[in-house]
């Protein structure tokens, strides 16, 4: 039986991270995984909500979980690490604190769904899906560091996703496709997230540290699972180079794009042309048909 999930793309996957959306859809199609986008989904509220109102930050995710329940689905997949974190936090807090659960019910005027599982794409692909069978292309020259960022694994008691300080889920997934991944110590270090808008200096410093370490261990690409990490590492990479007088030219892929490449999906259908740091030269150099 083909796997089936409700799909919560979140705002970024409809705009700044649209490559993550198209590549995720393309990979699911290839693997026969059915994903149905939630009709009428709303923003999870992300940091601006939880920094200003706890109730708002929990009610917005729950509105989406109600929509999932009304679709008749029990599993919802949220590729954006921030959405994934906010949906899981809402479920965790409502379960821990009956008072806040009551307030969320009051706001949404509905009983809260009890049996909705919030999943990351990394979980659904590592769930016994026969991924290796779909591989048609080898990329032997790729040396990738997997950058998980903050919110996939933290806080561990809420996320319960992999080992919070040194996760391996993305490394294992890419390794099963024949893509080499490297050990490094910045897997879960923060890129500065939304401070890019307000305190760009902080984000340039943090992304500089991450890029330096990636190059130091010999990587020629970075894999990410978060649209905010991607914006900071890819779109601001030139700014980092200018600020610190360095030269990286390090392509940053969503891990779903690397899956697509291994499955032989054309780069244009994976949104690679939207990246600021082009991967063309790297890919033509490491490709083997």
């Amino acid at each position, binding site marked *: 039986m083909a796997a089936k999930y409700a799909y919560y793309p979140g705002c970024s996957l*409809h705009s700044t991270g649209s490559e993550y959306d198209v590549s995720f859809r393309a990979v699911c199609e290839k693997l026969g995984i059915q994903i149905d986008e939630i009709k009428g989904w*709303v*923003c999870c509220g992300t940091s601006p909500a939880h920094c200003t109102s*706890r109730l708002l930050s929990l009610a917005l995710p729950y*509105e989406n979980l109600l929509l999932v329940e009304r679709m008749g689905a029990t599993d919802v997949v949220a590729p954006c690490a921030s959405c994934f974190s906010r949906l899981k936090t809402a479920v965790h807090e409502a379960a821990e*604190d009956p008072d806040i659960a009551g307030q969320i019910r*009051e706001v949404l005027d509905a009983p809260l769904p009890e049996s909705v599982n919030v999943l990351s794409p990394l979980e659904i692909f590592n769930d016994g899906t026969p991924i290796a069978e779909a591989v048609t292309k080898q990329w032997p020259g790729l040396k990738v560091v997997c950058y998980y960022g903050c*919110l996939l694994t*933290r806080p561990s008691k809420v996320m319960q996703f992999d080992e919070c300080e040194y996760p391996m889920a993305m490394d294992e997934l890419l390794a099963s496709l024949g893509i080499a991944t490297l050990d490094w110590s910045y897997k879960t270090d923060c890129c500065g997230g939304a401070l890019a808008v307000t305190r760009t200096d902080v984000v340039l410093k943090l992304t500089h540290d991450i890029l330096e370490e990636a190059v130091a261990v010999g990587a020629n690409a970075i894999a990410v699972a978060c649209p905010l990490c991607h914006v900071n590492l890819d779109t601001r990479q030139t700014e980092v180079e200018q600020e610190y007088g360095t030269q990286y030219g390090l392509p940053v892929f969503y891990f779903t794009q690397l899956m697509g490449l291994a499955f032989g999906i054309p780069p244009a259908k994976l949104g690679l042309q939207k990246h600021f740091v082009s991967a063309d030269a790297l890919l033509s150099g490491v490709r083997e048909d």
Partner: protein
Amino acid sequence: MEKEAGKMIQSCPTTQAQSQLAEAVLRESGQNVNLCYQCRKCAAGCPISYVMDYKPAQLIHAIRLGMDDLVLNSKTVWLCASCETCTTRCPQEVDVAKVMDAVKITALRRGVKPAIPQVASFYNAALANIKKCGRMYELGMIVGFKLRTFEFFKDVGLGMKMFRKGKLRMVPSLGGALTTLRIFRRVKNVEKKNRNA
């Protein structure tokens, strides 16, 4: 667990005389800062602490001492990137990131001017956008942010390039707008009712 933390404050004689600010944080976030024994793991792991005026452990201590002015006017809480490293590593299971949120919420409620006004403006612009559009409409949010901060030329080149690459939408999708308007309104009402209760 949050309930237990609350009980602990009442039953422990050494923490009975706790500051009003610590109580406000507890009410807002369920977090009992009196559990902190200053191991400073939160400060050591914080990627942003190098620009903070007070390290997370210092801020927690100031909350315990009831130093309202220092805490509510600190840059620390507005610079926090919510990366959750402190929360994950705290041996006393104090959710430090949640404490940061609770301090911001308390400062806003008491009408304290945010120490990093751009960050507060960013939150306001984003929330106004989500409320009206249902989903984040980046172009609209950025315009709203610039109108609030007067930083009209920041990141314009970057924005243009993102637009050319098809990374920004021209028009908002208003699918969930009625839903978010309703949720925002009702959240405000429920919060008001609980504060008066």
